[in-house]
C-alpha cells in the first residue's frame, strides 16, 4: 500500500485515470476535473474507475460509498478518508 500522503494519493489517482479514460486524457487532471464532462466516463465507467482505485489501494469500498461522486476531487476525498480509516484500524 502507498504512503497515504495527499501527493502520493493524487499521483496514483492521476495515473489510474489516464489508464482508463478514453483516449488516455492528455489534459491536466485536477480535483475539479469532472468524471463525465471532462473525462468522458459514463456512470458505469466512473464506477469501474473507482473499482480500480479500490483494487490498487486496497480500500474495500461498498457501492453505497461511491454513488454520487462526480469529480476527481470527490474520489480524492473519499480515498484519503478511507486510507486514514484503514490506518487507524491497523
Amino acid at each position: 500500500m502507498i504512503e497515504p500522503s495527499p501527493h502520493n494519493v493524487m499521483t496514483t489517482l492521476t495515473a489510474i485515470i489516464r489508464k482508463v479514460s478514453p483516449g488516455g486524457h492528455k489534459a491536466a487532471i485536477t480535483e475539479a476535473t469532472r468524471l463525465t464532462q471532462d473525462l468522458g466516463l459514463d456512470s458505469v465507467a466512473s464506477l469501474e474507475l473507482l473499482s480500480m482505485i479500490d483494487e490498487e489501494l486496497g480500500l474495500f469500498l461498498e457501492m453505497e460509498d461511491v454513488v454520487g461522486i462526480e469529480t476527481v476531487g470527490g474520489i480524492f476525498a473519499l480515498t484519503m478518508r478511507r486510507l486514514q480509516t484503514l490506518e487507524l484500524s491497523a
Partner: protein
Amino acid sequence: MTYDALAISYPRSNDPLASFLTSLDRFLVEHVDARAIDAAHRIPDQVLRGLADLGAFGVTIPEAYGGSGLGLLAACRVVDVSARRDRAVATTVGLHLGLGTRPLVAFGTAAQKARWLPELAAGSRIAAFAATEPGAGSDLSRLATRAVIDGERVRVDGQKLYVTNGRIAGLYTLAVASDLAGGGALIVLEREDSGLSVGPEERKLGLRGSSTTPITLAGVEVESARLIGPTGAGAAQLGHTLAWGRTAMAAGCCGTAQAALDATLAHVRLRHQFGRTLAAQPVVRAQVADMVATLHTMRALVVRAATAPDAAEHERLSLAAKIFCSDGDWAICDLALQLHGGSGYLEDTGLPLLLRDARITRVFEGANDVLASRLGQIELTAPRPPTADLIGVQLSERLAAARSQGLAALRDPVLMHQIGHLAVVREAAASLVPPATAADRHALIRLSESALAIGARSSAGVADLAASVLDLESRQ
C-alpha cells in the same frame, strides 16, 4: 388462421409506414436475389438505386433535408422487412440509417446537416461508420486513431477495420481519440478526402453482399468543422449512436429469423414422414412453436428498445435486444435447418445462407459476451425494481452475491456476465407482460426455463480445467 409474419409485435392499424413497407417488400421480392448477391459478393448497383428511389436511405433523415423524418422504430421496421428478403441489403441500409447517419442527424450543426444530409437522404451518398481498430474491438476506450486539432484544421491518422459499407460509402463517420475534454470525438470524412484510402473487400463467412473493408487515414487534413457537434461530447455521442445501431441490428435479426421461419413453415406443411406431414408431428410442432415464440419476443424487445424513454434506458434495452435477437436469430436459423433434414444443408434451400448471415450478429457491434458483462455492470449499478417471478428471483440472488463483494464485484467478469444474461431474459420477459397471446405465454415459459439454466450454471471445476488448458504453455 393465416399467419401474418409482419404483423407480429408491430402496430397493425393506422400504421403510417404500412404503405411504404409494402412497396419496399414488393421491390425486394421482385429485384433482390439473395443467393446471387451472396455469390457475387456485392449488391447490384440497380438495387441500391431502386432502394434510393423508394426513399429507403432517407427514412430517418429530417424532412427539411429530403428525408421522411421518422424515428428509430421506423428504421427497425425497414431493416426487418429488408432482412427477410436479404440480410446484405438490410445491413447496407440499416448501417446507413443507424450508425452511418445518426451522429449527424442527432448532433450535427446546422451547417453540417445542410452540407451532407440531402445527399444521404437521397442515397446518392451512402454512409459508413468506423470505430473498430487493430487494437480496439469491443473496447472503444483504447482507440489509436487520433484527431489532432490545430486551430481551424484537424489531422487524422490511423486505421479502421471491418468498416461496413466501406467500398460503397461516400461519407465516413469515425470514432477517434482527441485532446478534447472527454478524450473522444466523432468526425466526418468524405470519400474524396486526401489521405483516406479504402482497402480490399474482406472475404467473409456470410453477409458477403455487404461491403466490409479496412480504411486507412494517412495524414488526412480537414477543417475542424468536420468534428460533429459540441467539442467534448464524444463519449455521449458515441453511446447514443451505438445504442441506435444495436437496436437496428437487432431488428435485422428478426427479419432473417422470419425468413427461416417462412421456409420452415412451407417445408413442414409439405414434407411427409412416417405417413403424415412434419407439421402434424408433436415434436416438430413444439419446435415450430418455440421458433414463433422466440421471434415474437425478439420483435417485442426491439419495439421496447426503439421506443425507450431516455438514454440510460435505451442503452440497457438496446444491449438486451442485441444479445437476445442475435442469439435468437442464430437459434431459429439453426432449428430451421434441422427441421429441413438433409436438404437444409444444401445451398439451394437458402438455409445455409441464412445461417451464415446470422452468425456475425453475435459478434459485431459488440461481442455478445462483452455486452452481457456490460449489462451486468449496469444492472449492478442501476438495478431495476426486483420482481417475484422465477427470473426476478434468479437475478436478485446473483445481485445479492455481487453486492456482498462491494465495488470489487465490478471486476468479477464471470458474475457480471451471468447477471447480464439474466437481465437480458428479464427485459425479454418484460416485453411480453401482461401476456395477451399464446405466443406471449409460450415465450414466458421458455424465458423462465432459460433464467433457471443461467442461474444454475456453476463455476465448479471450471477454473481448474481452464488453467490446465490455457496455462499449459507457461508451465512447460
